């Protein structure tokens, strides 16, 4: 007697209907050997599903977060495409600014101050890129402080984007304040890598 092939047994196990399926079912009904094979296939699936869940040997979140932060920073850095878009749209706002009524609280030098803060932030980004901390050995404390700073920069970048998209009456001042904060955080991040966390006082 010709027994069912593995293909046919699997078709039967998975309830798929293929040409010749009826003949296979007929054979199965009268063949104890094929019935046993089919039962083993069912059991094997159950055994596969019952295998223990393999757990990661270490917590990879810090690595994922670091890669996310880097990707985000690249987007907002002036060198990146997203960064260029952000910079371009801010530049457009700045260009249009003289045509718009300035809020009474605005400093006449607000535009120049904003441009200076953005430039400083860009220079710090460049310094950090040049230093390439991801290729260096970093002690645990420095890594923690750097990660905290990167998180804060990341949150600030989101805020910058929102402020830029929905300018308020005091928008230019708010924007300037955010860019100043970004410069401060970037400065601390550069310092933490260059001089190590113990000297930063965070």
């Amino acid at each position, binding site marked *: 007697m010709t027994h069912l092939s593995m293909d046919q047994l699997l078709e039967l196990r998975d309830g798929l209907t293929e040409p010749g399926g009826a003949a296979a079912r007929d054979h199965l009904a009268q063949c104890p*050997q094929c019935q046993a094979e089919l039962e083993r296939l069912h059991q094997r699936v159950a055994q*596969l599903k019952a295998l223990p869940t*393999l757990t*990661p040997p*270490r917590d*990879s*979140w810090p690595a994922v977060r670091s890669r996310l932060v880097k990707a985000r920073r690249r987007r907002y850095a002036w060198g990146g495409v997203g960064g260029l878009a952000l910079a371009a749209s801010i530049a457009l706002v700045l260009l249009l600014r003289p045509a718009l009524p300035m809020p009474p609280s605005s400093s006449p030098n607000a535009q120049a101050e904003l441009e200076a803060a953005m430039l400083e932030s860009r220079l710090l980004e460049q310094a950090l890129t040049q230093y390439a901390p991801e290729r260096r050995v970093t002690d645990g404390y420095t890594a923690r402080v750097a990660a905290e700073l990167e998180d804060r920069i*990341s949150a600030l970048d989101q805020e910058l984007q929102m402020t830029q998209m929905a300018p308020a009456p005091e928008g230019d001042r708010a924007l300037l304040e955010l860019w100043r904060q970004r410069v401060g955080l970037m400065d601390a991040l550069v310092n933490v890598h260059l001089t190590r966390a113990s000297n930063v006082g965070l």
Partner: protein
Amino acid sequence: MTKALALDPFPLADAEQVVSRARRGDQAAIEALYRAFERPVYNLARRVCRSVEDAEDVSQETFLEVARSIRKYRGEGSLWGWIRAIAASKSLMRLRRNRYRETEELHENVTPRRREDELLRMDLEAALERLSDVSRAVVWLHDVEGYTHAEIGEMMGKTTSFSKSQLARAHERLRRWLGEEVAV
């Protein structure tokens, strides 16, 4: 559409809120997604890929992709189903990059088959590990994760028949290695 995703086997408390925050780039929300799905993602990657290092890389790449693409998740189907599809795709990409090491064939070419089989009584874990990369991936994705042959074929850039024949071949070998052959 996968076969078995009506219910999310790895439910996440406040999933809707977490996803909504992750869409806005909230890192804490992305971490919550990571914490909720880290184990099943790693398990899938480890079962498909051969090494711990590959599985860890795949796991990281999966969550980077989740963070990048979470805006595309519309809430149709379970969140795990969506993340799992990314993990499966990344795992198969890793296998392709490693050029499908065919260890099983190597073994069989140098050892007389019948004698070796008579001596072998592997456990399922060891037998699974001994399968070729492609066969192991098909067995895991089909029999455990519940993907259809059409879906597996598509993910592998192959045909539905390819997936079916790989599964049949894998089960024939598992049967032999596990000493489960029925005497004819």
